[in-house]
């Protein structure tokens, strides 16, 4: 059963068509990648899936429920989380607090109980703290727990964003170019991290320009071109797809698989 079903999805900005009549399904428990040249509409797709943009047309079904047009926090509450192409860190907060914000949905207390520090708050805080530390350890970030987010290098921030998204407790994690700007060692770490996330039973929808990484990590791949579907299939099917080779890679293909 597909976890995410997209049908007839379209979005344009003024004259620019970013996504046009797109249809695809993401099976549960897999790493599903979306690739395509710059401006193909990948981030726009993510923005619609996560409720940041409202689609012009079409439907998005997640866990067999319609989520088209829902606000992002409602989408998040249903178990969809994401990272951003341009870091959206809470730079005014510590590393731990950043991830604890991710635990927002797993704790309940409201303004007044918190302000009066009624019983239960301390326990809840401890629980959130524990969850956050777990995710930080999972992403190999335990060294940075007490630092301010603003003090971290770019590569670490990329992983911090993932830890924060995992803290939400998602069924589906959208990752927008997690390896962009990383060096080779960091990219290899990222690849392992993505697989480990998948092994936890979290479905991963990945957008990435690093073809090597995509081919190694994905179960299925969707190729976008000018907002529509050019091809879809397993990594080996995509690598041998003539249209993909012509349109996207200009003929000569060399994958470092």
């Amino acid at each position, binding site marked *: 059963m597909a976890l995410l079903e997209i049908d007839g999805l379209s979005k344009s900005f003024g004259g620019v068509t970013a996504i046009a009549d797109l249809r695809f399904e993401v099976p549960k428990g897999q790493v599903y990648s979306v690739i395509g040249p710059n401006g193909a509409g990948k*981030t726009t797709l993510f*923005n619609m899936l996560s409720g*940041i943009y409202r689609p012009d047309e079409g439907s998005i079904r997640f866990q067999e429920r319609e989520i088209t047009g829902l606000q992002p926090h409602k989408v998040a509450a249903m178990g969809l989380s994401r990272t*951003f*192409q*341009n870091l*959206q860190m809470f730079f005014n907060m510590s590393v731990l607090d950043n991830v604890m914000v991710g635990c927002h949905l797993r704790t309940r207390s409201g303004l007044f109980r918190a302000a009066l520090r009624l019983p239960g708050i301390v326990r809840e805080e401890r629980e959130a703290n524990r969850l956050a530390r777990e995710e930080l350890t999972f992403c190999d970030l335990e060294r940075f727990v007490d630092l301010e987010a603003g003090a971290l290098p770019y590569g670490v921030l990329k992983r911090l964003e993932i830890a924060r998204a995992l803290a939400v407790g998602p069924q589906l994690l959208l990752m927008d170019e997690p390896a962009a700007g990383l060096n080779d060692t960091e990219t290899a770490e990222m690849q392992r991290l993505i697989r480990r996330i998948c092994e936890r039973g979290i479905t991963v929808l990945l957008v990435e320009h690093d073809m090597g990484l995509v081919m190694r990590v994905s179960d299925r791949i969707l190729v976008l071109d000018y907002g529509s579907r050019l091809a879809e299939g397993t990594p080996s099917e995509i690598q041998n797809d003539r249209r993909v080779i012509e349109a996207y890679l200009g003929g000569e293909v060399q994958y470092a698989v």
Partner: protein
Amino acid sequence: MADQILQFLLTGITVGATYALVALGFAIIYNASDVVNFAQGEFVMIGAMSAVALSAGDNGLPMPVALLLAVLITVCVGVLLQRFAIAPARGASVVTTIIITIGASIFLRGVALLVWGKDIFALPAFSGEQPIHIGQATLLPQNLWVMGGTGVMVLGVHWFFSHTAVGKAVLACSCNRTAAHLMGINVGLMMLIAYGLSAFLGAMAGVLVAPITFTSYDAGVMLGLKGFSAAILGGMGNPMGAVAGGLLLGLIESLSAGLISSGYKDAIGFVILLLVLFFRPSGLFGRASVERV
């Protein structure tokens, strides 16, 4: 009734023209440096007060000379403000710059208080006090000076930004500072020009309306707020929007003072401004900013 309305419109346009000049000053500084300059109203006050001081008394300067000097003094204040208060705080947050300019406005007011005291002054009208009749409505020659002067300056500013190399360079800095710098534009100088120009507009507004509204050391406060309102109404960063916003605000106030209540005229202006913002969060002529993620 129709005559009354005509009278309100004439008053509204005069007041609105002043607001427009102040708002234009706001827009120019905002465009050049992303700063909302809450000391803009003080430029108006300094222009008017120095003109009064320079021309007053038996051995005062002749009017045109006094006006010219007053405007020059204000321009100097504007340039100094940029150089010593705004430039050192580059990169500060919106709130911090707001407080710096508020500090500057309090400082300038304090200086004015020290130099001129708390008295209220008037400048003699430029060309007599003989009212002009239009139907039942009357108009002072000074009103014409305000409207005409504003018109000329608005056109001048428009021409400056669209036709002169310096004007275009200032605009380039506001679009992208780094790029402008790399293109060999002297960004620091352009900032000084922007502040000088804003101060010039403020001072002109000051000397033009001083014969009608009188002036005192704290006359800049309300004008500054109105100018800011007008600039926001038009859409911050759109100079012609600021002018339109100023005229509109002047008309709204004058009409509501005449038709509804003079005590509540300012409140009505602000209510309308809020309503506009609720429906158009970037002002009437501002471009809606889309946040890309």
